[in-house]
């Protein structure tokens, strides 16, 4: 990782466009592989000709079953994986800038669990005590509850971890543990109260899965994630300034309070929408930004788009692995991302401690 001359940047850092293009190409490849893999193996050429057909550029596939599998099952799932990964990575980057700390992750500090609590509450109590709320929020009540749960937990963790305008990492992580535990207990209690039918849809939230991904679920994720991604070009420079500190950003002319409020909302929208659709999947918001920084540095103008593409790639690959490794069963997606992300996080924690002491 540090093969270059000590302290001097090199490689892709000077060629960020190459990094983004390579990641995008890898994402395309992973999508084709993901579309082809599964109980029915479909060769890449067939996947590509199907895609051309769906774009209105080619004749329909010879086998109608191929079209059905790709259109009904795999396409929404692959798209959901990519979108959710992009959303989680964006939420991770925004949250890290908000906390001025590269270790913040929506799942790690309880924001995802808070979102899941909101969603679970609507599932279990939606017909009972929360019926009024569900009626008021309409068909998107699940996503709205997840958003509110995410926003609430972000506010709690931020308020607790903030001291003199600085966010204390230790407090942030400890507050995250506590918030995770409290929200987890809430989910546990609701699980206890749940009926058998509700229970089946609940297990899915805690470990995360794309198995429920279909076109309708996809629609409820596209808009929030697209909204967050659309804000990226406007936010990159203020985010860079924010990394210096609130006062420094103010001196650089950034409307700090407005930007931070916006970050809070965008993070909660992205994390909440993804949690509402696929449950709690940890570490994507940590791993994708981390590798993006490693490749092109922390400048959000290049790092943020790269992190989004890497997040999409990461979740897509993880989901393809989750559903093909132990056929016919499916591994829980959250388990896979935690297996990859947990050790990385421990390593980062150790490394960042060294940096803090040297400062």
């Amino acid at each position: 990782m540090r093969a270059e001359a000590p302290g001097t940047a090199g490689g892709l850092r000077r060629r960020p466009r190459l990094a983004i293009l390579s990641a995008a190409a890898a994402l395309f490849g992973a999508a084709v592989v993901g579309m082809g893999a599964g109980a029915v193996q479909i060769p890449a050429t067939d996947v590509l000709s199907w895609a051309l057909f769906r774009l209105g550029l080619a004749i329909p596939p010879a086998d109608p079953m191929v079209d059905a599998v790709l259109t009904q099952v795999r396409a929404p799932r692959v798209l959901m994986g990519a979108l959710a990964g992009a959303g989680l990575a964006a939420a991770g980057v925004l949250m890290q800038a908000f906390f001025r700390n590269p270790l913040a992750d929506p799942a790690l500090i309880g924001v995802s669990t808070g979102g899941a609590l909101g969603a679970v509450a609507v599932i279990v109590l939606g017909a009972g005590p929360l019926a009024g709320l569900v009626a008021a929020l309409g068909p998107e009540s699940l996503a709205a509850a997840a958003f509110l749960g995410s926003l609430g937990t972000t506010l709690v963790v931020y308020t607790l971890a903030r001291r003199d305008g600085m966010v204390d990492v230790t407090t942030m992580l400890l507050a995250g543990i506590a918030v995770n535990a409290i929200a987890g207990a809430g989910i546990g209690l609701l699980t206890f109260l749940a009926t058998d039918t509700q229970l089946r849809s609940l297990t899915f939230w805690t470990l995360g899965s794309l198995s429920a991904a279909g076109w309708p679920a996809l629609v409820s994720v596209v808009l929030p994630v697209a909204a967050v991604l659309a804000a990226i070009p406007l936010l990159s420079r203020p985010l860079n300034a924010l990394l210096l500190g609130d006062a420094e950003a103010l001196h650089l002319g950034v409307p700090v309070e407005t930007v931070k409020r916006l970050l809070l909302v965008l993070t909660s929208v992205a994390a909440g929408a993804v949690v509402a659709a696929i449950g709690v999947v940890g570490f994507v918001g940590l791993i994708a930004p981390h590798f993006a920084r490693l490749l092109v540095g922390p400048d959000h103008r290049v790092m943020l788009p790269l992190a989004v593409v890497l997040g999409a790639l990461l979740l897509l690959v993880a989901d393809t692995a989750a559903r093909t490794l132990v056929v016919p069963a499916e591994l829980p997606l959250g388990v896979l991302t935690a297996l990859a992300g947990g050790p990385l996080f421990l390593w980062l924690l150790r490394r960042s401690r060294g940096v803090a002491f040297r400062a």
Partner: protein
Amino acid sequence: MPDPLLAVSGLVVRRGGATLVDGVSFGLHAGEVVALVGPNGAGKSSCLRAISGEWTPSAGEIRILGQQLSRWPRRALAARMAVMPQAAHLGFDFLVEEVVALGRLPHHRRGAPAADRAAVDRALAAMRLEALRARRYLTLSGGERQRVHLARALAQADGPERPSLILLDEPTSALDLASQQAALGAARRRADAGDGVLAVLHDLNLAAVFADRLIVLRAGRLVAEGPPGRLIAAGAVAQWYGCQVETATTASGRIATLPAAAS
């Protein structure tokens, strides 16, 4: 006479029940380097924080180029006033030149990347950071980081509209002799070119070499103001700091202040 670059009148700063700055008034004109000096806790940094807009004054008035501070649009102000804080904590691994380029943020809407690059180059050169420009920030020493943030402030104050006001809070606290000279020399040159510099300094010798004027604060009040040579020679330093000092005049006629060997 044009409006002074900075005019502070009757400034009072109270925080958490304590009065940190108590009725301070002074002005700073374009072309001047003014050093804010005084013992620890005298209110120097609090003064600077109020002037930079980070803290809202409890009473009094601050005007930049004749216009009240609170009436300046944030971004327009940032294009004319650069601030180097006492300690900057940056935990992300930017390159040195990227950190300096962050100072160009208030000028970006003008859309002149060549001007930005030129300003960054000038600031790097002024702080003798050319050799470090592609280094990763987190691999730098404390003094090197301080020079980077000073360069960032210089790049920020290098906008198309002048004069600019440069506020420096203990810019030399972690610097070696050569870097102190580079830092305050750069500030001096910027003032000579028409900008204004207000710097909190602890080192009276540096203040005597580089500043046109000293403003001495003690317990939140302004206790003396004037050219450093005259003020220091008048023998009031011991009184400001509450300790025994010795002063001497160098061969070139500059005044040096040393703490007495024992008290």
